[in-house]
């Protein structure tokens, strides 16, 4: 039960983040919103890291440089997400976003890209994505 609450809240926070960014960018601009929110997030995460010390910075050297830069994608993610929310609203944005997210992860997993363990494709995955697309069509009715 506790796990379900955490997962449920996690999802709420993810959407809240997008909505807050959309609101803030109306006042100060999208790049400003992305810069400021990630700066404060970074400071808080770093402070927590100082307390919990759950990883050494040195271990970053063992990771391929490409993977270390993944965070930089957030600049483009926030920009596109904010633009989408302004244009088509939160529900449709999140729906389309999730379809793209699951479909690309699916494609990466069945091809074993980025050194990910290859997985077999399953019928249920096609049915799932089909249902999600059908749901988006219903949203527009």
């Amino acid at each position: 039960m506790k796990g379900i609450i955490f997962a449920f809240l996690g999802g709420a926070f993810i959407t809240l983040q997008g909505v807050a960014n959309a609101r803030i960018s109306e006042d100060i601009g999208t790049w400003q919103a992305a810069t400021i929110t990630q700066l404060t997030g970074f400071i808080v995460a770093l402070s927590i890291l100082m307390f919990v010390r759950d990883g050494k910075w040195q271990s970053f050297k063992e990771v391929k440089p490409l993977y270390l830069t993944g965070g930089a994608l957030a600049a483009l993610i926030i920009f596109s997400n904010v633009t989408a929310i302004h244009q088509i609203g939160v529900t449709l944005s999140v729906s389309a976003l999730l379809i793209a997210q699951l479909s690309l992860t699916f494609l990466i997993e069945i091809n074993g890209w980025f050194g990910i363990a290859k997985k077999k494709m399953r019928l249920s995955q096609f049915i799932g994505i089909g249902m999600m697309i059908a749901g988006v069509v219903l949203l527009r009715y």
Partner: protein
Amino acid sequence: MIVGLLMALIAGSLISLQNIFNSKVNERTGSWATTSLVLGMGFLASLTIGLIMEGSHLFMLQNMKPWYWASGTIGVGVVICLVQGIKLLGATYAISIVLSSQLVFALLWDSLGLFGLEKIPFTFMQLIGVVVIAGGIFVFKLGGEIEKQKAYN
């Protein structure tokens, strides 16, 4: 409409890539070291692109409100909830709930016009749409688990 949809699809694809890259970092270090790195990188990238696009205008924040600074901590809440949820439920179930919950709250905040964003009136059809999409997420994520269990029995 098309631009908005396209932007949402781009955002989703990049999130998928970012999740995979981040999990590669997380294999070697803890979740807070990973989170700090990810947010630090995001900050640097946003600052750089912002400076290229807007120059010194990037620092003109006339309409800045105090709570805007605090909103960055929402991301920290996301990490805490996801790490705990996955620990307690396992990744497949936790992520299925996280994704569906994103949708439910999207619909809620569209109907409320949260933070003064344009209100999108709630319709019954939208609720059905969201339920079908959430159903799709669970079929996508959990279908394999059920197939696997059948193979064992």
